[in-house]
C-alpha cells in the first residue's frame, strides 16, 4: 500500500519538475505561477461552502457550461477523477481556463453567494481538480468508435483542440495542422508563464492526442500543405488559426534595435532559453490591453529597470481586465495616460533612446462609443527609454484567409453564428479568427465553446449527408 502511494507521488513529482526545470535559472523564479494552488484543506473547506445550487447561475455564466456545482461537490466528496472529468468534458481546455478565465466576470460573478457572503473560488477549485488529474497522470476520455471519416483542423489552439477533442469522441479521424512547433496556441505561447505555465496547455494537448488525434506541428497550411488538398482529403475543415502579430505603429523608428512585439516577447519567455535583452533596460509598452499588461509584467520579470505603459486614452477606457491592471501596478509598472507615441528615437547605431509622445485629451464620442482622443497642440515630449514593446492589438492572417477564398470583414472570417459555418459550406471556423466585428469573444473559454459548437455542427452535417445517401 505504502509503496504504491510512493510510486504515484514520485511519478507526479517527476512530471512537474521535468517541465519546470526546462527554464534557465536566471529569471526562472520570476516566471513561476503567481497564484498558489489551494491546499487540500482549503479546497475541501471551499468546496463544502458551495451551496450546490439547482439550475445554478454559474453554469449559465460559463461559456462552456461546465456543471460547476457538480464538480465542486465531487471535490468535497473526494471523487477527484469525477470532478476533473466533469470539468474537462465540458471544456477540453478546462485546466488552462481555471487559470486564465476572468472568473469574476463569468462563473464567480454569477455565484449567488455574491448576494449573501462571498462567491466560491470556482477558478481555484477548477484548478485544484485539474491539477489532480495532471499530477496523477489521468486519461479522462476514450475515443469514439471509428466512423472512418476524416476532419482537418487548421490551428491547434484552444478552439482547434476543443473541436478535435469532440470530434475524436464522436469517432472521427482528426488531424490538426499546427504552424508552431508545439500545439496549444495562445495557451502555450501567448499567455505569460506566471499565469499559465506551458505544461498545463501541453497536458491538454496531450489529452487530445491520447484520443488518437494526429497533431502535425511546424506545418503551415498554405505553405507546407495546400488548403485545397485538405478539402480534398477531408470531409470538413475547421479553421482555428487565431490572429497574427502586433500591427505596425506606423511611426518613425519602428525598425530600431530594441523595438519588440509584445506577443513575441511573451513567446520568448515560454520556451528556453530565457531572453536577457530586457535586463537593466528602461522599457515602454504601447497599448493598454491584456497583452500590453503581459508585455509590461514580462519585462519587469526579465529584469527591466523601469517599465511604463503609455496609452492614448485613460484608465477608464483601457481594455485590460481590472485584475490584470492591479497585477501590473503591483509589479511596479507605471502608467502614462493620454499619451500618444509619435516617434521612436534612436542613436546613430540604431538603438532605441527614447519615445517621442504627444499629450492627448478626450473629445466627443467616436463610432465605438468611447470618447475620441485628440492631440493637445504643441505638447510633444520625450520619454527616455532603451526598449519599446508594441501591444496595440493583433493583426489578422489576412493573406491566408484571402487565399482560402472565405468571406471576411477586415480579416475577421464571417460565419453563421449558430453553426460556425463559413462562406464555404465545408469549412467551419472558431476561435480568434472569427473574433471581432460583432462576432465572438476573445476569451480562451469562448474559443473552447466555439470549437465544441463547430464540431457538433460538422457532425450534424455529415450525419445528414450520409443518411441521405
Amino acid at each position, binding site marked *: *500500500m505504502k509503496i504504491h502511494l510512493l510510486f504515484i507521488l514520485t511519478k507526479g513529482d517527476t512530471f512537474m519538475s521535468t517541465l519546470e526545470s526546462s527554464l534557465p535559472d536566471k529569471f526562472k523564479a520570476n516566471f513561476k505561477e503567481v497564484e498558489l494552488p489551494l491546499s487540500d484543506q482549503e479546497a*475541501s473547506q471551499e468546496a463544502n461552502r458551495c*451551496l*450546490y*445550487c439547482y439550475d445554478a447561475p454559474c453554469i449559465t455564466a460559463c461559456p462552456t457550461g461546465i456543471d460547476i456545482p457538480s464538480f465542486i461537490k465531487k471535490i468535497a466528496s473526494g471523487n477527484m477523477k469525477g470532478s476533473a472529468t466533469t470539468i474537462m468534458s465540458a471544456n477540453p481546455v478546462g485546466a488552462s481556463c481555471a487559470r486564465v478565465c476572468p472568473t469574476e466576470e463569468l462563473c464567480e460573478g454569477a455565484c449567488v453567494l455574491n448576494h449573501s457572503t462571498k462567491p466560491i473560488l470556482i477558478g481555484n477549485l477548477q484548478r485544484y481538480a485539474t491539477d489532480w488529474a495532471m499530477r496523477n497522470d489521468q486519461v479522462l476520455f476514450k475515443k469514439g468508435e471509428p466512423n472512418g471519416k476524416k476532419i482537418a483542423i487548421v490551428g491547434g489552439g484552444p478552439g482547434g483542440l476543443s473541436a478535435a477533442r469532440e470530434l475524436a469522441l464522436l469517432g472521427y479521424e482528426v488531424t490538426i495542422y499546427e504552424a508552431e512547433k508545439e500545439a496549444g496556441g495562445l495557451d502555450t505561447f501567448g499567455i505569460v508563464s506566471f499565469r499559465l505555465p506551458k505544461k498545463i496547455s501541453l497536458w491538454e494537448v496531450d489529452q487530445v492526442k491520447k484520443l488518437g488525434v494526429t497533431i502535425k506541428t511546424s506545418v503551415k497550411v498554405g505553405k507546407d500543405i495546400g488548403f485545397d488538398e485538405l478539402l480534398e482529403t477531408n470531409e470538413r475543415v475547421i479553421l482555428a488559426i487565431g490572429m497574427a502579430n502586433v500591427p505596425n505603429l506606423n511611426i518613425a523608428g519602428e525598425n530600431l534595435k530594441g523595438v519588440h512585439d509584445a506577443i513575441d516577447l511573451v513567446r520568448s519567455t515560454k520556451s528556453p532559453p530565457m531572453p536577457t535583452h530586457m535586463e537593466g533596460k528602461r522599457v515602454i509598452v504601447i497599448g493598454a490591453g491584456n497583452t500590453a499588461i503581459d508585455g509590461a509584467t514580462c519585462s519587469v520579470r526579465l529584469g527591466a529597470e523601469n517599465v511604463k505603459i503609455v496609452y492614448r486614452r485613460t484608465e477608464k477606457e483601457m481594455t485590460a481586465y481590472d485584475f490584470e491592471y492591479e497585477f501590473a501596478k503591483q509589479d511596479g509598472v507605471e502608467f502614462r495616460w493620454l499619451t500618444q507615441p509619435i516617434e521612436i528615437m534612436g542613436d546613430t547605431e540604431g538603438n532605441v533612446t527614447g519615445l517621442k509622445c504627444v499629450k492627448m485629451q478626450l473629445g466627443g464620442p467616436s463610432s465605438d462609443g468611447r470618447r475620441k482622443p485628440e492631440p493637445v497642440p504643441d505638447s510633444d515630449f520625450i520619454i527616455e527609454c532603451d526598449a519599446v514593446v508594441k501591444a496595440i492589438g493583433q493583426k489578422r492572417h489576412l493573406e491566408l484567409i484571402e487565399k482560402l477564398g472565405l468571406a471576411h470583414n477586415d480579416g475577421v472570417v464571417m460565419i453563421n453564428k449558430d453553426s460556425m459555418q463559413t462562406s464555404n459550406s465545408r469549412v467551419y471556423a472558431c476561435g480568434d479568427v472569427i473574433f471581432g466585428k460583432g462576432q465572438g469573444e476573445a476569451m480562451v473559454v469562448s474559443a473552447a465553446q466555439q470549437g465544441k459548437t463547430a464540431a457538433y455542427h460538422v457532425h450534424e452535417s455529415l450525419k445528414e449527408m450520409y443518411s441521405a445517401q
Partner: protein
Amino acid sequence: MADLRTNLAGITSPNPFWLASAPPTNSGYQVQRAFEAGWGGAVWKTLGDPILNVSSRYAAVNFNGQRVAGFNNIELITDRPLEVNLKEIYETKKRFPGHAVIASLMVEPKQEAWHEIVKKAEAAGVDGLELNFGCPHGMAERGMGSASGQVPELVEKQTTWAKEAAETPVIVKLTPNITDITATAEAAVRGGADAVSMINTINSLAGVDIDSWLPIPNVSGKGAHGGYCGPAVKPIALNMVSECARNSRINVPISGMGGVSNWQNAVEFMLMGASNVQICTAAMHHGFRIVDDLIEGLSNYLDERGILSIQDIIGKSVPTYSDWGNLDLNYNVVARINNDVCINCNKCHIACEDTSHQCIDMLNDGNGNPILRVREEDCVGCNLCSIVCPVDGAIDMIEVPQELPSMTWNERQSLLGSLKDCKITK
C-alpha cells in the same frame, strides 16, 4: 448577572455546567484545572476495579468538513488504582469546597460490592454519587454498565443497594440503548434514586476505512462497538430528557447530557426539565476554556429576559411536549419566500419538487429577474424549504388563519367512537 447556582437533589454548584464522567475528569489535575476555568461541577471518571484499556480508543464523525459532528469511544472506566482516585478527589474537594464533586461508580451487580464502593467514595468527601448503568462497551460484556442498565429490575435493585449505604444523593445514569428510557428511569426511582442523569453513549461504529476496510477505530486490525456522543446525539438525548421530565412517575430531578455543546443547548435541556447539564465532547474538542462562554452566554440570555435565576427556566417547556395524538390537526403554516432576501440558489425548489409536495415554482418577475414563489394552497407546511435555505430570513413559515376549530387526533378518535354508539334510524 442572573443567579446561576443550581441544586440537583441537594447537590449545589455555582453554575449548571458539570463535566460528565469521562476522560476530562480522569484525574485531580484535570478536574482542578476545570474548576479553575469555571466549571461548576465534575463527575469523576467512573471508579471501580481498575481495568486495562486498548489503543487506539476514539474516533470522530466529520460532516462536510465540520470536525467532530459525532464522537465515538471504546475507552473503559478508570484505569488508575481506586486509592489514587480517592486521594485526588479528597484533595480536589478540599481545594474547591464550593464546587460539586460527584463520584461515578460501577461495580459488579452485588450488594456488598456496591456498599463497599459507596462508603469509600463518600469517605473521600464527594457531594454525591452517580451510578454508571450506561457504558455500552467493554464493561457491558462483563455484566456491568449498560448490560445492567438495560434491565429495569437490575437498575432498581442496584440503586437500592447503593442507597442502603449512601449518605449523599444518588444519581442514576441511564443508558439510551433501550427502547423506552422511562422504563429504566422509573426503575431507578423505585430503587430510591435521588436523581437520574441521561444519556450515556449510544452503541456505535464510527466508520469503516474504505481503503483498508478496517473498522474505525481499530485495535491491531479489529474493532468493536463503542459509545457515541457529541453534537449529533443531542436530539436523541433531548427527547429522552423530555420524555422523563413529562412522566409523573419520574418525580426526581434530571441531570441532562448528550451533545450539549454551547449555552443554547444548555437552555434547551433545562427548559425541557434538566436541573443542570453535563458536558464532555465539547470540552474534549476545545478544552476547558469553553466554560467561559457557557456561563457568560447563559447569564446574558437570562439577563436579557429579566430572569433572575436559572432555576426559573427549569422545565418551563415540558408542558408543551406531548404525544402526537394531542397535536392540532387543523393548524396550518405555509412557506413564504422573501424575494428581496432570497439569493436564488433554488435549493428550496428542488427539495420541494423532488422530495416534498411540488409547490415552489421558479418564475420570472416580469423584469427578467428569476424569482421563487410558493403555491400556498399546495404547501403542507413541512418546513423542508426553510431548512435547506442557506440564507437567514429568506423563507418564513407563516401561520395560516385557522378555518376549523382545533381538533387533535385523540379528540377526533373519541368523537368518532361516540358517533359509533349513536344509532341512526332511517
